[in-house]
């Protein structure tokens, strides 16, 4: 049977506020355990939550960016359950009245565009961490993360493959960073995915029973976990079994998902409106003010790159995958260079070297201005593309700007037609048999002559000029 995969994602994006969502404690990562947990975070008797305006503003930014409804009135509720890293015994979240309703995100999979609809996005606080090692059979509790603001972004079950799910997650990841509402650091847990996965016979209208896979903290794990889960579910159904709704955990070491708790074991969270917080009222003026401050978003940037720079959809997609990379590219291109040349170098050499050395674009040793300097020398014919790669490597290693490297290493392209003609004349004189064969119709030998000339000039011959001279002299 043909199976259709149905996936919906819940993403927890940690909002980039300096202080927590309901207290004044710092949200900075990596402090000593409990150094950033104030009276409110540890839930002392008598303390009360006060909503961080910055967290709300970030939710508004997100809502506007995905074309959602930013609700004028939303409500914080308590989600009650006991766990040692949940100090109040309840999490403050939004339940039936979330701040952001609807919206959509366009993704590109195998060249085709698809729209993923969003159900909602709501504000909530993070829990602390239980530390099970190093305490001799006891559990340590670190409440630094307790109260960190999260935006939980829930999609509709609109994705039909792990590839689409990853494309959606990446698009969302790029978007929250564009919006400057989340640092997107997946290793530190700033952007976490849960996937709801089910399968159904192709053509069926009814959804299959879903399983929720928790805490997928990389795009690769997201993809692997979904693929494992899909084949697990298909195997069960095809061998006559049924899928039970449950929460599963992905084990990246074993590359499998395993049951965490069944639907029957699910908590009754006893949600009710938090009486310590008034309903969140957002005035239209605030929404408009935030709208005015939105940056150009990835989708708009992408189509601008296609229309204004003449780039392909694919190239535009790569270059806009992060705000920083796009800014770097635009900085290079605005130096009056051919955008395609710039795109090729940013996607090729820059991205390649960054990947190789596991660096972010912000840590790139070659500034956009320096790269523009190099590309200028290609465009004005001072050096060839091939030599430029050599110069690039030297620049990467910190040997200086393009011009000084070209000068120091004597890499300047030979564009003096007199000099080139002299070299070509010598090659013709020294290779009579090849000349004769070429003239007799063996066109392929042209490459041989180019090679000889490049060898003689140490690769510094202007390729276009050389080719022209060779053609002229060989056909004489």
């Amino acid at each position, binding site marked *: 049977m043909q199976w259709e995969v149905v996936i919906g994602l819940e993403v927890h994006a940690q909002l980039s506020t300096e202080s927590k969502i309901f207290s004044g404690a710092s949200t900075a990562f990596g402090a000593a355990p409990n150094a950033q947990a104030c009276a409110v975070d540890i839930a002392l*008797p008598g303390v*009360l939550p*006060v909503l961080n305006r910055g967290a709300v503003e970030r939710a508004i930014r997100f809502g506007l960016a995905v074309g959602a409804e930013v609700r004028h009135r939303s409500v914080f509720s308590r989600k009650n359950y*006991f766990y*040692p890293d949940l100090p109040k*015994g309840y999490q403050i979240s939004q339940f039936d009245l979330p701040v952001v309703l609807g919206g959509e995100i366009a993704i590109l999979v195998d060249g085709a565009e698809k729209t993923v609809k969003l159900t909602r996005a709501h504000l909530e606080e993070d829990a602390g961490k239980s530390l099970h090692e190093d305490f001799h059979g006891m559990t340590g509790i670190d409440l630094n993360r307790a109260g960190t603001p999260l935006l939980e972004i829930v999609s509709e079950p609109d994705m039909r493959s792990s590839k689409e799910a990853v494309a959606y997650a990446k698009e969302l990841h790029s978007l929250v960073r564009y919006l400057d509402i989340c640092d997107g650091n997946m290793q530190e847990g700033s952007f976490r995915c849960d996937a709801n996965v089910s399968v159904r016979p192709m053509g069926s209208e009814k959804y299959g029973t879903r399983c929720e896979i928790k805490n997928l903290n990389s795009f690769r794990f997201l993809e692997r976990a979904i693929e494992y889960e899909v084949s697990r579910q298909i195997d069960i159904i095809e061998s006559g079994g049924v899928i039970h709704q449950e929460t599963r955990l992905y084990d990246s070491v074993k590359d499998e998902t395993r049951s965490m708790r069944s639907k029957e074991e699910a908590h009754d969270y006893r949600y*009710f409106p938090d*009486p310590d917080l008034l309903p969140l009222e957002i005035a239209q003026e605030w929404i408009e003010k935030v709208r005015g401050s939105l940056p150009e978003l990835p989708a708009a940037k992408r189509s601008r790159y296609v229309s204004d720079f003449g780039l392909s959809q694919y190239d535009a997609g790569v270059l806009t995958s992060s705000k920083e990379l796009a800014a770097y590219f635009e900085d290079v291109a605005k130096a009056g260079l051919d955008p395609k040349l710039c795109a090729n170098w940013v996607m090729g050499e820059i991205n390649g070297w960054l990947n190789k050395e596991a660096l972010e674009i912000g840590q790139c040793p070659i500034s956009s201005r320096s790269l523009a300097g190099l590309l200028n020398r290609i465009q004005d014919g001072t050096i060839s593309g091939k030599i430029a790669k050599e110069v690039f490597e030297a620049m990467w290693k910190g040997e200086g700007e393009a011009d000084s490297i070209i000068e120091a290493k004597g890499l300047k392209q030979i564009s003096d037609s007199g000099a080139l003609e002299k070299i070509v004349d010598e090659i013709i004189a020294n290779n009579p048999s090849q000349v004769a064969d070429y003239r007799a119709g063996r066109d392929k030998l042209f490459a041989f002559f180019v090679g000889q000339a490049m060898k003689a000039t140490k690769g510094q011959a202007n390729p276009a000029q050389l080719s022209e001279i060779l053609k002229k002299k060989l056909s004489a």
Partner: protein
Amino acid sequence: MFNASLKDLSAMLSGGKISSVELTREFLGRIDALNPEINAFITVDIDKSLMQAKLADAMIASGRAHPLTGIPVAQKDIFCAKDWLTTCGSKMLSNFVSPYDAHVIERFNSVGAVNIGKTNMDEFAMGSSNETSHYGSVKNPWDRQAVPGGSSGGSAAAVAARMAPVATGTDTGGSIRQPAALCGISGIKPTYGLVSRYGMIAFASSLDQGGPMAKSAEDLALMLGLMTGFDSRDSTSLDRPVEDYSRDLDKPLDGLRIGLPREYFAEGLSADVEEAVRAAISEYEKMGATIVDVSLPNTKLSIPVYYVLAPAEASSNLSRYDGVRYGYRAKDYKDLTEMYEKSRSEGFGAEVKRRIMVGTYVLSHGYYDAYYMQAQKLRRLIAKDFSEAFKQCDVIMGPTSPSTAFNLGEKGDDPVQMYLSDIYTIAVNLAGLPGMSIPAGFGKNGRPVGLQIVGNYFSEAKMLNVAHQYQKLTDWHLKMPAI
């Protein structure tokens, strides 16, 4: 001296007739003598109190005095006070020394008032008799067989027995007014949102409100001015200009319209309480007030509504007492679940557990709509009753409690009988209105009767005026138990 008003004590302090240290010693002496029997205080810390008194004397000497500078104040043990044991009447917090001050405590500290001790109370403010306290019952100073009321029973008894000139309380369903009535003192629960709840240990957040307890309305007015005011740490705190609650005390009451809800003078009200309350109302008529018959038709619903909403909020508010970070933790447990179960079973008393269970039940999946949502709807109807009534009158009056103080242990076996004793006070919390109780005589058994005055939102100054005029004409509030 221990019978003097705040105004007089303040004048004596600023006039140099007495120092705060002397005054504090005077009251500490009374506590030492009377508290073993009355049990109004959970914690007394002579050194801390005297230290504050010394600071107060320095403030007075430098001329920076407020009417409450140097005045001993008994603080209900629900208010977190830095470096003071703060138990909320519970074994659960029997080891909790607060690392911070509640907003209310800060306010008193800021003017140099002296914390004379932390008063006994029903566990987590859940009770109407003070019998649910982990620290034992408080005895009513008027009659040691009688309860002082609750949950602010320790504060009420402390003022009634003149172990403190004034005290603080909190009122979720009558916990200031009912013990004030039963102990023959004055107390006011302000409009919800006027007194910050920051540092006031939560019972039912949407109903809890702190307020003063004292011998007279005049004293309450001075206290209230200090305790109210916007606090950004409490999202339900109201950002309003600070008021001088004494400003209207001396206004005549000509033309005052007093609403008498017929539901407050119906079945269940003791004859002697009714008699005393009606006598008080006659006094008002003599002062030029007119009586208006009003109706609060949903009064009866207030008890079921309250006993859904308050436990619902409480069940969640008390989840933080899990033995993990502070407070009581069971000695032996084999895993996390058992640690929770034992710590909470051993740390909470029966009434608290009952309410946690009720609250958990009404919030459960499948019951939420039928209980919690329904109760919220009815809560709005109850509030509407009052807004309708206030179209016809300026204040509402009636009994604070259906009877005078009952005997210790009398209602111990029947929680519903106990809950019914709050029938006249609960609706006021559900509506968020201000309410107060002032002494209005005695019942047949010689125990005090309280007159309840309910005003419209933010009409505290008017209510205090109404109470003060009565207290100028009568001397019930000056009566002191024979101790």
